[in-house]
C-alpha cells in the first residue's frame, strides 16, 4: 500500500475560527493554460515553504493571494479578506515579488521609505532604517537600487516588504541571488518573524533550501498541490520514490539479468547498449553494483542517477496522487 500524502498544514491553534491565509479550491487559467488547479490550504502564524519547480504555479498562487490576479474559480482570502478589493488588508501584507524590477532611480532608502509612506507607517524614516538594517543594507542606503547586484536588489525588496511590519509576508523566491551567508541570515530572519506570530509564506524551487526554511511545506507541481505537511514526512515520502539509474557498460544484458535475479532492481530496459534500471533499494544497489560487475567481468563505464532532481520528485508526487 502506498503511503498517503500528508494532510494539509493545520492552523497552529486549533480554536482559530479563521485562518490567516485561506485558499479554497482556487484555480487560475490563462486561456487554455491552467496555471493553478483546484488548490486548497489554510495557513496561520509560522513559516511555510511553498516548493515547486519553475512554472509550477507558485508565483500565480502568490499573485492570487495578494489580489494581483483573480482566481478563475474558488476563493483566496487573506485575514478573511480579498486583497484585490479590500484596501485596508493590503496594508497588512508584505510582498517580495519574484520579478527583479525596482524603481531603479530611487536610492535604497527612498525605495523602502516610499513603501513605508504608502503603507501609512507612522514613523517612516525609522521604520525604513530598521528594515534596511534587518536585511544588511544599512551601509548602502544612499545608493541607487538600479546599481545594486541581484542579491542586494533581493534584499531591498525584502526590506520594502518588511517595512510596514505586516501580519502576512509573501516572499517569492527571496533567497535567489543571495550568497550563503546572506541566505542563513535571511532564513534566520524568517523564523524570527514566524515566531512573532506572522504568517510567512516563502516559495522556492530548491529542495535543500526548503528544508531549512520551514517545517511546514506545500508542494506544488503542474499547478496542483502535490503534497503538504511537515517537511520530514514529505522527505520520507520522497525517499520511497523508485530511483531510475542509467548504467553505461560493456555487458548491459548480463548485468541487467544479474541485478534482476538478485532482486536489487524491479525493472530494466536496454537501449543502444545502455542499461536503465529502476530500483527502490538504492542502498543495496550502491553496495552491490560494483561487485556484481566484477563477478560478471563487465566494465562499469558510467553510473548516473536519472531522477535525482526536483522535477522527478514532483512528478512522483503528482503521479501517486
Amino acid at each position: 500500500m502506498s503511503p498517503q500524502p500528508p494532510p494539509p498544514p493545520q492552523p497552529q491553534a486549533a480554536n482559530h475560527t479563521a485562518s490567516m491565509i485561506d485558499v479554497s479550491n482556487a484555480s487560475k487559467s490563462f486561456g487554455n493554460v491552467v496555471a493553478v488547479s483546484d488548490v486548497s490550504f489554510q495557513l496561520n502564524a509560522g513559516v511555510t515553504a511553498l516548493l515547486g519547480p519553475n512554472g509550477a504555479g507558485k508565483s500565480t498562487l502568490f499573485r492570487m493571494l495578494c489580489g494581483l490576479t483573480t482566481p478563475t474559480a474558488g476563493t483566496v482570502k487573506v485575514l478573511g479578506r480579498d486583497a484585490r478589493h479590500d484596501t485596508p488588508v493590503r496594508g497588512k501584507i508584505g510582498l517580495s515579488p519574484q520579478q527583479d524590477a525596482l524603481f531603479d532611480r530611487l536610492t535604497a532608502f527612498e525605495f523602502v521609505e516610499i513603501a513605508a509612506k504608502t503603507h501609512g507607517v507612522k514613523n517612516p524614516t525609522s521604520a525604513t532604517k530598521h528594515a534596511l538594517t534587518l536585511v544588511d543594507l544599512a551601509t548602502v542606503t544612499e545608493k541607487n537600487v538600479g546599481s545594486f547586484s541581484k542579491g542586494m536588489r533581493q534584499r531591498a525588496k525584502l526590506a520594502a516588504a518588511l517595512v510596514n511590519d505586516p501580519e502576512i509576508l509573501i516572499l517569492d523566491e527571496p533567497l535567489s541571488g543571495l550568497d550563503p551567508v546572506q541566505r542563513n541570515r535571511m532564513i534566520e530572519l524568517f523564523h524570527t518573524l514566524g515566531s512573532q506570530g506572522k504568517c510567512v509564506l516563502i516559495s522556492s524551487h530548491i529542495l535543500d533550501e526548503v528544508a531549512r526554511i520551514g517545517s511546514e511545506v506545500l508542494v506544488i507541481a503542474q499547478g496542483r498541490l502535490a503534497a503538504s505537511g511537515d517537511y520530514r514526512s514529505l522527505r520520507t515520502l520522497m525517499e520511497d520514490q523508485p530511483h531510475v539509474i542509467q548504467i553505461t557498460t560493456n555487458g548491459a544484458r548480463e548485468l541487467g539479468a544479474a541485478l534482476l535475479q538478485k532482486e536489487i532492481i524491479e525493472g530494466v530496459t536496454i537501449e543502444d547498449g545502455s542499461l536503465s534500471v529502476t530500483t527502490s533499494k538504492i542502498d543495496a544497489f550502491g553496495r552491490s553494483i560494483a561487485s556484481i560487475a566484477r563477478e560478471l567481468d563487465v566494465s562499469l563505464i558510467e553510473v548516473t542517477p536519472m531522477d535525482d532532481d526536483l522535477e522527478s520528485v514532483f512528478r512522483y508526487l503528482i503521479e501517486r496522487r
Partner: protein
Amino acid sequence: MATVSPIRAITLTHNVLLKQLITKGRLIGITLFGLLPILLGWVIGRQSDDPLEAGVGFISYMGLSILIPVVALIFASASLGDTREDGTLVYLWLRPISRWSVTAGAWAASSTITLPLTVIPMTIAAILLDAGNTLILATILTAVLAGFAYCGIFLLLGLLVKNPVIWGLAYIFIWEAIVTSFAKPAAAIAVSGYSRAIITGRTGVEFERLFSPSQGTSIFMLIVIIAVSMGITTVRLSRIEVP
C-alpha cells in the same frame, strides 16, 4: 498603522513616478524637439504679413496638434504603462491607497514634466511670432489645458495597449492632426478640436471649416476629457492583472 490620505497618496505616487519618468535621454530629445517650434516661430514671425493669423495657425497645428500630444504621449503613456511592463506597478498597486490616487498621481507626474517642456517653447514661439500679448496668453492657456487633456488620454493608453507610443503617434498624426482639420464631427471628439477653438476664440482669428464651439464649452469639454480618461484609467487599474 495610520491611514494614507488621498492627497498624500497622490503626492507620493507623483514623486516616485516623476523620478522614474525623468531620464537624460528623454529630456535631451524633447528639449531639442521643443527648439523646433521656437525656430519656426521666429521664422514665421519675421516673414508673415499677418503675424497673428499666421501665429494662431502655427500654434494650433504645430504646437497643439503635434508638440504637446507627442511630448504628453512619451511621458504619460510611460507613467503607468512602463510600471506595468517592467513589473514595478505592484509597488504602488499593493498598497492601502485608493486606485484613483494612483491614477491622479501618475497623471500629475506626467503633467509636471510635459507642461514645462511644451508650454515654455510654445510661449517663446508665441513671443517670437511678434503678434502681441493676446496670442501669448492664449497660447499659454490653451497649451496648459491641452497638455493636461493629452496626459489624461495617454495615461490611459499606456495601460490599455502594448507599444502605446506607436498607437499614440498614429492617433496624433492621423486623428488629432489630419482628420480633425477637415472633419468637424471628428474635431468634436478630439483634444485638438477644442484646444484650437479656444485659441481662435481668444485671438479672434477664424479658420474656415474649423469646428468652433464657444471657449466655455471647449474648456468644459477638455475637463470632461481629462475626467473621463482618468476615470477609465482608474477602472482599468482596478481590473488589471498586475504582473
